[in-house]
């Protein structure tokens, strides 16, 4: 089970430990945690997603990473949905591999692809009401690097 979409929080330390457990060929674990940033007057946000497609899209991204870096040992992706406050964790991507180069690359690749290919949408809550977050062109550029 390498991909989860859930409302509940996750324990990044536990996830990193699970990436290592029972293997003696892991030399590197690269991981990423996305967090709700308190930009301007943002107090919270709600993440909508496309149930069914979300899991497929994340699994396809993980499969693409594994085909690009075949030596990867384990990959874990967790994305939360629902309402999240500033400081709450949104997403975890963890990659275990033999060496650090492939672990870093695959972790960043998965995040870049997730940002442009996984069907999640953020709606921010501010003092003036709610507003949908606009997609950033820099995310398309980041995904196009690979």
């Amino acid at each position, binding site marked *: 089970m390498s991909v989860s979409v859930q409302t509940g929080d996750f324990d990044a330390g536990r996830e990193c430990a699970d990436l290592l457990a029972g293997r003696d060929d892991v030399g590197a674990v690269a991981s990423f945690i*996305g967090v709700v940033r308190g930009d301007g007057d943002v107090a919270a946000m709600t*993440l*909508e*997603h*496309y149930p*069914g*497609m979300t899991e*497929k*899209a994340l699994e*396809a991204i993980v499969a693409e990473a594994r085909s690009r870096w075949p030596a990867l040992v384990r990959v874990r992706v967790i*994305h939360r949905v629902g309402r999240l406050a500033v400081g709450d964790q*949104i*997403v975890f991507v963890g990659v275990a591999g033999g060496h650090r180069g492939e672990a870093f690359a695959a972790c960043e690749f998965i*995040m870049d692809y*997730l*940002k*442009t*290919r*996984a*069907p*999640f*949408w*953020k*709606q921010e809550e501010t003092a003036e009401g709610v507003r*949908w*977050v*606009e*997609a950033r062109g820099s995310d398309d550029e980041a995904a196009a690097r690979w």
Partner: protein
Amino acid sequence: MKLHIRYFASLRESIGRAGEDIELPCEQISVAALREHLAAHGADALGDTDKLRAAVNQVMAGPQTAIGDGDEVAFFPPVTGG
């Protein structure tokens, strides 16, 4: 052909509903042609193609992706997860 149409996020709010089941007298249709048809029949927000994305059967699709009978077709704004 029967199709299951779904809308998400700001697009769902603009159109005012989460989706619709429709029937068309075609055997196949492209994403672009379906979008134009829906835009002309009550889903006006689909007329602004500037920042529109689509998926066919829960896989990202382009304007020329072919849609067949029974398919689930979703329209939504560019994604903002992560």
